[in-house]
């Protein structure tokens, strides 16, 4: 297998169409399909879990919801509405059947359709997550690159310590700090709450977005920074970068063409994970800023024990998780030719 007479290797998808199975030729598409299928299965499993958590726990759910205002008639009515008299499996069947039809039930808090209530908030939260995700990732990646390129310099030390500090702080601490600094006590640059009038797009009044986005960006930036820095350093210390130095290539080329592409895959993974983290992070941040999004809705729903709303929101979040996971993995696979074009 090593004599020069051996048939040539060197596979490039385009030149070896015959003989190679479809999945080898389009590894990314193949992976997306498999993961989508798995994702759907996962979501079903998640829905079961949500259902069990909310309706199978000790204590009569209806009583828990109504609390002290539980008169026998209202109890009966609620139980009928929630199908609590039927078996667990039947209850699940009712619920999942509705979900698949797009009917997520009625909110127990104010009697309206859950999907109508929550719909616009999805957009608000999405804007927040993606703005914070993009700004935070870009800034952190750039900072990580510089810190690794000028390792042990002042920039590196300052940003590393900064990252370590911020990583530890809970997002509500960051949020409060941001409010204290920029809104109330130190400067008075931005409003302390971001109440967006219903029906308007969040982008129409940018100053309302600044503080929440800033908070979320600050929360995720350190993780991305540290991973970028570490991955770049590993690349810069690798044998192939040493080889590039010994070939006499310029420092810039080594940094951007040799090291960076190899550092990206783990960074993409971390960015993905942090986007997921944001899905939970918005809960607290929206609450602090009174921002009308999914997170604030969840908090309110939990306070009110509004079970259908809770179920809907958590399911939405889980779907978001699965989707981001798939996209992240696809991106990571695209960024690492080694795993893509295995021989």
């Amino acid at each position, binding site marked *: *297998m*090593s*004599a*020069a007479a*051996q048939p*040539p*290797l*060197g*596979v*490039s998808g385009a*030149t070896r169409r015959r003989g190679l199975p479809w999945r080898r030729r389009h590894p990314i598409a193949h992976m997306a399909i498999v993961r989508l299928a798995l994702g759907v299965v996962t979501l079903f499993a998640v829905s079961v879990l949500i259902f069990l958590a909310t309706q199978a726990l000790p204590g009569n759910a209806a009583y828990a919801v109504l609390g002290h205002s539980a008169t026998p008639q209202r109890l009966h009515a609620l139980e009928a509405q929630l199908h609590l008299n039927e078996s667990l499996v039947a209850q699940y069947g009712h619920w999942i059947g509705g979900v698949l039809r797009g009917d997520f039930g009625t909110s127990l808090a104010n009697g309206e359709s859950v999907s109508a209530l929550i719909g616009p908030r999805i957009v608000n939260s999405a804007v927040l997550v993606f703005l914070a995700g993009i700004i935070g990732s870009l800034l952190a990646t750039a900072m990580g690159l510089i810190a690794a390129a000028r390792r042990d310099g002042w920039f590196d030390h300052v940003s590393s310590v900064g990252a370590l500090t911020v990583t530890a702080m809970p997002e509500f601490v960051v949020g409060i700090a941001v409010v204290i600094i920029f809104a109330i006590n130190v400067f008075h640059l931005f409003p302390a709450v971001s109440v967006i009038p219903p029906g308007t797009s969040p982008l129409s009044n940018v100053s309302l977005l600044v503080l929440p986005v800033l908070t979320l960006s600050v929360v995720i930036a350190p993780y991305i920074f540290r991973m970028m820095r570490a991955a770049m350093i590993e690349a810069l*210390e*690798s*044998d*192939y970068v*040493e*080889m*590039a*130095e*010994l*070939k*006499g*290539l*310029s420092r810039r*080329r080594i940094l951007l*063409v*040799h090291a960076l*592409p*190899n550092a990206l895959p783990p960074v993409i993974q971390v960015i993905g994970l942090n986007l997921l983290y944001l899905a939970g992070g918005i809960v607290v941040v929206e609450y602090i800023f009174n921002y009308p999004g999914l997170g604030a809705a969840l908090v309110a729903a939990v306070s009110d024990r509004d079970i259908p709303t809770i179920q809907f929101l958590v399911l939405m979040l889980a779907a978001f998780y699965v989707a981001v996971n798939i996209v992240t993995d696809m991106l990571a696979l695209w960024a*690492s*030719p*080694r795993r893509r*074009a*295995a*021989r």
Partner: protein
Amino acid sequence: MTIDRARAEDHARTLAGDGSASPLLAVDSLRVVLAGSATDVVDEVSFTLDAGEVLGLVGESGSGKTTVALALMGYARRGLAIDGGTVTLDGVNVLGLDQAALRRLRGSTVAYVAQDPTSALNPALKVRTQLREVLAAHRPDLSDEQVDARIAELLAEVRLDGVAAALDSFPHQLSGGQQQRVMLAIAFACRPRLIVLDEPTTGLDVTTQRHVLDSIRGLCRIYHVAAVYVSHDLAVIADIADRIGVMYAGRLVELGPTERAFRAPGHPYTRGLLRAIPDPARAHVLEGLEGQPPRPGSRPEGCSFAARCEFAIAECRIGSPPIAALADGGHWARCRRAAEVAQLPPLGELPLRERAAGAADQALLTVENLSAQYGERQVLAGVSFSVAPRRCLAIVGESGAGKTTLARCIVGLHAQWQGSMTFDGAALRGDRRGRDRATIRALQYVFQNPYTSLNPRKTVGQLVEQPLRQLFKLPASERQARVVGALRDAALSEAYLPRYPDQLSGGERQRVAIARSLVVEPKLLVCDEVTSALDVSVQAAIVELLHRLKLERELTIVLITHNLALVRSLADDVVILRDGEVIEQGPEVLDHPRAPYTHQLLSDVPSLSLA
């Protein structure tokens, strides 16, 4: 070789014209230290090199040979710093150049070929990119078409032109040999004056190694390029180098023409190395070197080798030994007794190996028609052989031949096989979990890598005792006695009992692993490439240990290896394996090979014949 002869000859003529009155490369008192300290890693290294000449730099791990090689390009790895001396290339002192000048030098005037092409080639960039960039960086005058033409030429020179789409591939899509040839192409791209090669054939199969060595030699000759070839493999050096320099503990201890240095070495260390390596043509007893080279920072007064040297006298330990010129010019050694040492024939009184008695006894292990798979991939097909008791059977093959799979099947670590195996009269089950204790005890296995086969969290005593606790019911005192006995058989004293593996050297660790197998008193020991991860001088000691155990403990050994010279030295019977099939077998295979593959293997092996 499909090199454009006319153009090459022109090129050679222009270079040869300078008469070589002064050498191309002159290294003087090169010194490299640990960054930020005065502790030297390499010191007093001086040598010269002419255009077209190949200097082999020989040494074991830690000798500093790679450090010297990199310093020739003005490069020091992280944690090291070049502290003194000059490296004059074509009249210019490389060590005095600034960063910009060094960048221009590297890749164009001086090129480097790394040891491991898998890690030296960027996995994220295509081969074409990695070839182009060196031309783009140093020959901006070339147009794109000229660059492409040059690349096509290079591929032909290194015999990669037959590989379809090599340029469009990523490195991991090529084989090890192909990757190394890409490295050679990159190195020769700008027609350097000096090439530094760092063990470029390590890890390659014998046949591929042969091809790569031939390529290197050819390219150097034709383009009149000087080369420094770093290696620990004396046989390969003998094959390719015109002169050799031997490094020990950061110093050059001997320098001279290859033939002469090997026939009449002046330094005891060189002599020791020669006596430690097996010869594929002649089975002699090996003599290892006890001890280890001193680390940087703990180098003693006087000669660094004195502690391990059989020729050492009192003066050797005081003051460093002077350079002694040896009878024939151009050959010197750093030793007070160099002249005497050079007079002794290097393999002197090393006796020939005694062959074990005939194989008439009932076979201890019989393998019949064994076929094995990994998932869907067929690894072994129809393998049959038998192992006679108290003899050593060597299973020889290139990487991928299936040797390790075979070893794992025998010992029960791999269960996906068909066929039959009989051990000590009883059938062997595929999975070790189905085997009874007596079989497990009698059939033991020593792993290749002593750095991973011992649990770093346990002491030597615990490690060697573990199989006793698992497989026997013995009182503690009895266990202790056996542990001490096993260690002694492996030439380790009781002082080793409380030590942890990371306090031991590679050779010591391997001995602990062997002791661990011996402690249960096995009948058959399967040794899987047990010397591959060790330094040359240490290998010999392990080989001799195994030989002694075979005789004293009446142990039967199955030796898995790719090293033909080792087989010659240790084995009584040989099985040649290729792509999962037995090519030929028997006690006379190396002396009287019949299959063409065996012939090929034997002729491709670089050898250092001193007999």
